[in-house]
């Protein structure tokens, strides 16, 4: 038993090192004004600075790509909620079969590669609705799909935790329309799920590279990739900030997930 626990901790330790060592290296590279070749244990505490980060902040490319990514993240979260919450609520109330179909569809983005998604998307809309290809906001539907495996599960957990049918019937019997019921009864009771889904959608958008790259949109991940050439320290500094922000979002999602389950 003691040996089993030791092995478990050993595995966890090795995995943690696998993630932590590159993070430490990345952080030192980004925030220490020391040439890479001279970084050593002896100068761990020397010449730390946040200047590379602020240098990036002053770049117009950074500002435009960060603004675009934030707007896309907000739009993705909103579209996800507007589409997913009513659809899944109706599936819960009316059709278990539809619920299974939605669940299956929601897992598909795990197995469909981003390149296939983009090729299909571009091929379909290049002629019929070219604005979706031209506009940066054309990324939003693709991001909604990409985030679906995470957002669907979160909303599903929230709805499953409620006695949805009774609440909806009670609201309807009191004279409320479907829209009012959705906004004032269902949404407040799955608010933790809604917040979690929004955080997850945000995180997906802030980290997505392939789709934006293939559709030639300058989102934050693309800026980071291209900025590495001309300002590597700044790009890594922004990258670390993004990792921290994403980690906070994931931690908040987990925390809210526990609230939902409770």
């Amino acid at each position, binding site marked *: 038993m003691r040996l089993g626990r030791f092995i478990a901790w050993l595995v966890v330790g090795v995995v943690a090192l696998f993630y932590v060592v590159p993070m430490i290296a990345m952080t030192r590279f980004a925030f220490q004004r020391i040439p890479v070749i001279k970084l050593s244990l002896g100068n761990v505490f020397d010449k730390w600075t946040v200047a590379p980060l602020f240098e990036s902040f002053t770049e117009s490319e950074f500002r435009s790509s960060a603004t675009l990514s934030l707007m896309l993240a907000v739009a993705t979260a909103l579209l996800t909620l507007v589409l997913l919450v009513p659809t899944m609520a109706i599936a819960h109330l009316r059709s278990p079969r539809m619920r299974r179909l939605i669940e299956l569809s929601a897992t598909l983005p795990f197995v469909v590669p981003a390149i296939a998604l983009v090729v299909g998307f571009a091929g379909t809309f290049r002629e019929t609705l070219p604005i979706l290809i031209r506009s940066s906001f054309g990324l939003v539907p693709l991001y909604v799909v990409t985030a679906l495996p995470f957002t669907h599960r979160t909303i599903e957990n929230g709805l499953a935790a409620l*006695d949805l049918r*009774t*609440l909806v*019937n*009670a*609201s*309807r*019997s*009191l*004279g*409320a*329309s479907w829209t*009012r019921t959705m906004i004032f*009864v269902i949404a*407040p*009771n799955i*608010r933790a799920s809604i917040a979690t889904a929004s955080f997850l959608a945000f995180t997906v958008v802030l980290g997505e590279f392939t789709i934006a790259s293939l559709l030639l949109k300058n989102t934050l991940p693309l800026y980071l990739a291209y900025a590495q050439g001309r300002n590597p320290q700044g790009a890594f500094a922004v990258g670390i900030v993004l990792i921290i922000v994403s980690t906070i979002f994931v931690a908040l999602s987990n925390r809210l997930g526990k609230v939902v389950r409770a």
Partner: protein
Amino acid sequence: MTRNIVFSDISKSFGSVNALSHFSLSVDEGELVTLLGPSGCGKSTALRVAAGFEAADSGDVLIGGVSVIASPANKRGIGMVFQNYSLFPHLKISENVEFGMRVRKMSRTSRTARVGELLDLVRLAGVADRYPHQISGGQQQRVALARALAVEPRVLLLDEPLSALDATVRVEVRDEIRRIQRASGIATVFVTHDQDEALAISDRICVMTEGRIEQVGTPVVVYRAPATAFVARFVGKVNDLGVDVVSSTKLRLRGHRFAFEMKPGAAGAGAAGREAQMLIRPEDVRVAAAISTEDSENGIHGVVRTINFGGATTSIDVQVVGTDHFVRVADNTRTMNFQIGDAVIVEFDTERALLI
């Protein structure tokens, strides 16, 4: 406008299952009618059709004389209390009661006054600022009733509102519902599978099985003069004895020499030689210590097999000597003082028996 509800020839099926078959019932203003029956008999379906949560295959529902069958649930002017706790968890008690009034865009002053009145009515003024999870199940159902009444519904529908409560609270809330219903004078349809609840609370009971109405009548009529064997067996306890018809006034207990003497023309006696069932309530059977081994004219020898002490009443199960027949005898006179294994003689008030 009269505040009554009429179910007119409603039929509803789910796939091949007929949940309701030509269901017709009228509930007048101020009246409380209970739909009583076993699970799956269609009582909740009838209520859901009335509320607009299920679409009927055919028939009509009239509230205050106006057909509402095509109206959505939020336009029917009903108030409903559900089996499961249905208070909105994110709203305080006062906000829950206020919900329907907000939908109707009533002024804040009117809403506040009405919430106060209704919480007083259900005797829960002290919990206005609490959330549903901070009050008990019984209190939640009383708040749900206040919330349903807040919209001044034309009809009140109660779908097994007591079934989630424990026995003591159940009786309290039941009496509370009846008091409030009488005070408000609203036509009320109450659904339950609990016969005691139905007998205690109703002006009339509608006994249902397999989507059909078996009998509609006052609690006394349904209990004392059941129209069918199903009603006799479902409402209250009944002894169900196999008999052979000897003549129009004589029935022999199957497998036994004892014969019941019946009044001439006893309902359902039928032709001599046929097999029948005699249904008789435990309180229509008397038991006494056996003083002879001979069966008397209307009595039969047996042995006490079970004694069920129920507080206010005690019942005993007597096995008829030499047979597999068991007879349940109820007594609340505190005179029964038998032990298991005692030899007794059982007498039947055959005038109260139902023959099928």
